[in-house]
């Protein structure tokens, strides 16, 4: 139901009513409630797909193939930014609603924690094969970079203009490169 995403571009989640959703979506009230308990439930269902897409994409940051360069890393970041921007209202709503809706918060913090474990494991595999400096604290580094990215997407990318976004994406990629890959791959 992309209707919700369209509506979120114009109004906040708390001002959005189930009535607006069913009217714009052209579905009946009873059908809505067959599938969803309330609008928070719908938000969680919609955003879960987008967050899964972002997580799978982010995994590429931590599994750069041998011989890949900063340019390849730039492509991965650009893809992430594109996905984020396409769904930024939905994702911003998740951040806001998570503060007061425990169920929504639970869904996404579990996804996030699981993702961090996958990121750290992936990076550890790279360390085992010498593609990443083995001295790097894989677990905490992915935590720091993920939290930074999450906040920056919301507060910098989500509010920036086209030119700013390009430069911000470039700088983010350099931070990832220098932190994770530069030492093992530039020497």
């Amino acid at each position, binding site marked *: 139901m992309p209707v919700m995403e369209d509506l979120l571009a114009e109004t906040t989640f708390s001002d959005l009513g189930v009535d607006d959703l069913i009217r714009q979506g052209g579905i009946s009230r009873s059908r809505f409630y067959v599938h969803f308990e309330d609008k928070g439930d719908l938000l969680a269902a919609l955003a879960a797909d987008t967050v899964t897409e972002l997580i799978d994409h982010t995994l590429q940051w931590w599994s750069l193939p041998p011989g890949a360069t900063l340019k390849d890393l730039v492509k991965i970041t650009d893809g992430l930014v594109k996905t984020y921007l396409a769904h930024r209202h939905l994702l911003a709503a998740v951040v806001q609603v998570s503060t007061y809706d425990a169920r929504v918060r639970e869904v996404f913090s579990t996804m996030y924690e699981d993702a961090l474990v996958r990121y750290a494991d992936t990076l550890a595999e790279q360390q085992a094969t010498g593609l990443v400096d083995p001295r790097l604290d894989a677990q905490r580094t992915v935590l*720091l970079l993920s939290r930074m990215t999450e906040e920056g997407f919301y507060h910098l990318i989500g509010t920036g203009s086209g030119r700013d976004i390009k430069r911000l994406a470039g700088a983010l990629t350099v931070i990832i490169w220098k932190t994770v890959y530069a030492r093992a791959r530039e020497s």
Partner: protein
Amino acid sequence: MSEPTVSRRARRRREVAEELLEAAKPLFAQGERFAEISVARLCEEADISRTTFYVYFDEGKPELLQAWFDDVMEELEGISEAWWKLDGTSRRDDLRSVITEIAGAYHRHADALAAVFEGALFEEPLSSAVDEVLDRNAASLESHLRRGQEQSWVDPSLPARESAQWLIMLLERAQLRIVQGVDPVELQMLIEAQTELLWNMLYLSSGSDRRAA
């Protein structure tokens, strides 16, 4: 002539803000959100009259959040000064002590800052006030990086402005969720990981002889 009065009021305002914070902490610990705690309840827990509350915070709860935020940021200002003094002669230990102070402040004041950042998602002018302080910190870090680039102790290929913006996201906005509620051992590990990240990112390339520091 009026200055002592003003500062006495400011001092008392700060005390009241601290008392309210201390009273709110047990409620936060039980999972209550600042947004859902009424002024009446807050005052009752703190044993402060509502009249007193509104003498100092006539705009209500968002103004109290602003006071909590200002207090922490004032503490962090001194820490940042120490950071801007770093240069080509600084060692990893110097950077580590700056990061230790920042992470420590966010860890100590996590309750207040969690309420502030959450409030800033919904409330104006709080949101703009937070943005303004963090933008200013990013601008200071940017100047620091530019000075380093001119003096060849920061990698000249780094985009100074955008790097500073991201690093402030890490050190400030994300810092809260990174350190909130962790034990002292984990806090130390997180400080170490951030020191490593910033040192490699900003300073390492200027001299490989400092790598072992």
